[in-house]
């Protein structure tokens, strides 16, 4: 459903961000979401960060169904 994917990525990202903001912690957040059709092709993501290891961190969640993969990454940086 090519027409709906745009909306799905936006919704996922906005809802994640609003839930994180509701936590009320003193952090800056970055949320990214990749949705890919299952076609036998390969996809690789990596990230490199320059921050303070004691206070900042990231988390990645992978999800799939019969027709697509979804990868969501969240980076949190302390104020």
């Amino acid at each position, binding site marked *: 459903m*090519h027409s709906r*994917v*745009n909306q*799905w*990525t*936006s919704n*996922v*990202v*906005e809802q*994640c*961000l609003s839930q*994180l*903001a509701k936590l009320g912690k003193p952090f*800056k*957040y*970055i*949320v*990214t*979401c*990749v*949705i*890919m*059709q*299952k*076609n*036998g*092709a*390969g*996809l*690789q*993501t*990596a*990230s*490199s*960060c*320059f*921050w*303070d290891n004691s206070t*900042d961190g*990231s988390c990645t969640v992978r999800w799939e169904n019969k027709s697509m993969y979804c990868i969501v*990454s969240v*980076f949190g*940086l*302390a*104020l």
Partner: protein
Amino acid sequence: MGESGEMLDNSYVIRPNFQHKFKPATAKECIHQILKEELVSKQYDPEQVPALTRALSEAVKDKLKEMGYDRYKLVVQVVIGEQRGEGVKMAARCFWDADTDNYAQDIYMNEILLLHLPLLVLQSDPCW
């Protein structure tokens, strides 16, 4: 930053000066150079691609640090996909300080692979 035993004087600067502000256009040029050099005729090889993505993100991060953004925190993300006609959508949202934080991105495509590189830059808290 005090770890080596020396104490630096307080600068009392909470926001970057206009000259030191992150400029997305220069960062994008920098990313583009690195991508062109590294990927000019690479194929998608499932064995090598994980190492390639990691190396690319490290290279971009180091190059950006050399450009003088020493009071910024950086997040560099690299996504490499194989071109097989599949559809891919990527979205990002950020919760940050719009005056000081910004992002730059670049996309590189050849017949075999597609690479998307968003780079996010956030101001670190002055902690000297």
